[in-house]
């Protein structure tokens, strides 16, 4: 079985969980004898290509014929966006990003009708335009490559998936890692992104949702027929080397790790910290990450007068994350809405007990975790206090939690995914109606 997969990012250069998930999934598919050709807007050449083939969309020469094809078809009419939209960052960050984007994008004119398009592959200000061009290039790739079906990850690649389906006639599976409802909430949703998500869901032959939570959103908020929506929980990569548990600070450490945005609930982490510190002056809280709510959070910490035991690390990656987990006694994820949430699994992998919000997809699959409502500061504080003060609890989580996470393998996820592929192919061969 051959799959043409469209993604937006892939390790080692990633901005969030999407790239990590794509990596794990493609490795798992390889183990299940599924060949994957992974297309991304801008590959660095450093990607791991041992098990899958990477296609760099920026290298693909495309025929203007496809641009016309794609543009002429009704379903795929372009929305010209003179967009100032940056869906993955909040307003405060917006101006920073504008200054940061160095190259932006430009078109290379090539003699004749052939063209190349250089993508930035980020989530910058030309995102909408890139998304649109990605679809054109996808159509070209779909004629170049041999495959049985198409798999597209998140709204950024849905148009590419639809275009590839249009050109090849092969079935389309889309993968929803997050919806506009998780990113922006009901009221602030970006209409254009919502429309593109809905379009992708409607055009798809099957939809993979990363949790039941996301599956329900797809069915209820996007009006998609439940029969074609499947829950496919994420897994976590096994860590190559054991994380060293080592502390350079006295006292217990409670950790938050993630983007400091509304969706992740950092405010609740601060309020919880205050509550616990009042009764246990020995404990320290660490907030690792950056985002548009940072200033507000710092101000609140100062206001509560807990800055001496509440620490900010800024954005962390790689080895720094391992060091932090190695120091942590509790990991807290108070997300307001989390389609999946892979970070608790990474914490558990490092023997750290976790307290997670019930409003997260990952809570659907974990047994060895304390689950609380994100808004329930008392319950969260109580759970943290319990883990810090009643050793039996920390022990059971450290041991059994690690065991539990070790059994969440991408290989098994991919096996389930392969079954979905098979079902889709079967349905295409023998349509129901």
């Amino acid at each position, binding site marked *: 079985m051959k799959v043409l997969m469209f993604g937006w990012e892939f390790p080692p250069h990633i901005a969030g969980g999407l790239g990590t998930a794509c990596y794990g999934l493609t490795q798992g598919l390889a183990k299940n004898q599924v060949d994957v050709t992974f297309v991304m807007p801008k590959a660095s050449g450093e990607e791991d290509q041992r098990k899958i083939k990477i296609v760099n969309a920026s290298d693909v020469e495309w025929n203007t014929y496809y641009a016309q094809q794609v543009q002429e078809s009704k379903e795929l009419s372009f929305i010209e966006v003179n967009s100032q939209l940056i869906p993955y960052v909040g307003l405060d960050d917006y101006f920073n990003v504008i200054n940061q984007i160095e190259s932006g994008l430009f078109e290379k004119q090539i003699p004749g009708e052939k063209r190349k398009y250089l993508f930035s592959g980020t989530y910058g200000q030309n995102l909408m335009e890139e998304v649109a061009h990605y679809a054109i290039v996808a159509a070209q790739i779909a004629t170049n490559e041999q495959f049985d079906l198409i798999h597209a990850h998140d709204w950024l690649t849905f148009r590419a998936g639809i275009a590839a389906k249009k050109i090849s006639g092969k079935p389309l599976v889309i993968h929803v890692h997050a919806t506009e409802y998780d990113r922006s909430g009901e009221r602030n949703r970006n209409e254009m992104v919502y429309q593109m998500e809905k379009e992708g869901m409607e055009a798809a032959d099957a939809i993979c949702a990363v949790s039941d939570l996301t599956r329900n959103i797809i069915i209820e908020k996007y009006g998609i027929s439940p029969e074609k929506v499947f829950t496919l929980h994420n897994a976590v990569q096994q860590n190559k080397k054991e994380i060293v548990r080592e502390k350079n600070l006295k006292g217990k450490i409670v950790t938050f790790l993630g983007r400091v945005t509304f969706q992740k609930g950092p405010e609740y982490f601060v309020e919880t910290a205050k509550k616990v510190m009042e009764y246990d002056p020995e404990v320290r809280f660490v907030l690792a990450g950056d985002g548009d709510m940072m200033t507000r959070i710092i101000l609140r910490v100062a206001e509560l007068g807990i800055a001496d035991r509440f620490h900010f690390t800024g954005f962390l990656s790689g080895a720094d994350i391992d060091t932090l987990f190695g120091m942590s006694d509790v990991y807290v994820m108070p997300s307001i809405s989390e389609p999946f949430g892979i970070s608790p699994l990474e914490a558990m992998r490092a023997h750290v007990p976790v307290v997670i919000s019930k409003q997260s997809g990952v809570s659907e699959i974990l047994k060895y975790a304390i*689950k*609380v409502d994100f808004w329930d500061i008392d319950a969260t504080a109580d759970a943290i206090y319990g883990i810090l003060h009643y050793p*039996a609890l920390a022990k059971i989580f450290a041991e059994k939690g690690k065991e539990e996470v070790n059994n969440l393998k991408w290989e098994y996820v991919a096996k389930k995914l392969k079954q979905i592929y098979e079902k889709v192919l079967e349905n295409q061969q023998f349509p129901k109606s």
Partner: protein
Amino acid sequence: MRKVCFHFQITQPYRLRTYRFFDIDKNHNYFDDFQNSYLANRLAERCYLPVTQMFIDLLEKYDNFFLSFSITGDSIRLFQDYCPAVIENLKKMVATGKVEIVGNTFSHSIASLYGKKSFLEQIKEQEKLLKEVFDVKPTSFCNTELIYSDEIGEWLYEAGYNVVLTEGAKHILGWKSPSYLYCNPFQTELKLLLRNYSLCDDITLRFEDKGWDKYPLTVDKYLSFLKAIPEDAAYINLFMDIETIGEYHPKESGVFDFFYHLVVEIAERENLSFILPSEVASVKEDLSTMHSPWPISGSSDEKDVNEWLGNELQQEAFQQLFILEDLYTESQNNNAKTNWLRLQAADHFAFMSTKWFPELSVKRNFDVYPSPYQAFINYMNVLNDVKLQLELNDKHLTKVSKQVKNK
């Protein structure tokens, strides 16, 4: 002649409220009054009142109908607090002279798994209460969840009991039948009545099970099960939670009619009769021994004590609880002392169980905790406060009461 020994257990605990760590050393009200009142009344309405009424009617109608029951001290206090009519009905039953109250622990305690001292304290408290409320002194004993071992048996004999009701656990009995009378190997004067759990589960677990090949269970069918037991095996011991009638199986299932007619049939048949546990104390013939070096119980299929002490959380809570044994003895804070007894209830430990994880078992019917971990944290918070309360000495106590008065 086969003898049917009916025994019903009433064991409602005082349920804990959500007690946070910041309540420790500040608030000493640990119990969820609303829930305790709600459950006591719900159960009374669905089960305790109609069931006791049914038994009263049957006792009046049939001179040869006898039954026994046990009720924990906590349950007595709960009903006194929230639903006194239940106690009145039980008193009426006892007044017929054909109902035996069997001894048990004060708070559905698992103290017998820790040691003699706390276990005997529980028994003493319970005897005091039974004397006060029903004016009886039991001579038969049914421990919490039928927990029993050779050693527990010896302690009980020492405490003045000569009959113990426990589980007919297969891994202990082997090829032997629970339908004979047994005795403790070290204290042969202590007689053992063993529960026929298969016959009990037919009602408790399978009465409404449509997938069961014997469904629906009728009185005739049930009597045919009784008849299948060999003629010389005289004792058919049916011990069950009283909640079986009306709560586990609602009235609409026909469970009341089933029990009513079962009693009628047994009472009217010549080859069947009812007995009370205390009657077997006077049996003179030589009995075979039942040797139980480790504790057994009536819990699920394993008949062991893993439901309460199966994981690290339960063991930790158990150790932390009973480490306060001496503190309890010395303490003069009576309120805290009662609360310490109440924290020994098996129910609290069952809520921390990960045995059937994540599926809920029958036993966790009234579980209010989102997970075993939260059950553990809540329990430990309460325990820590109870400990502080037990530690208060005389001076402090007077201080506290003065402060209260000043307020």
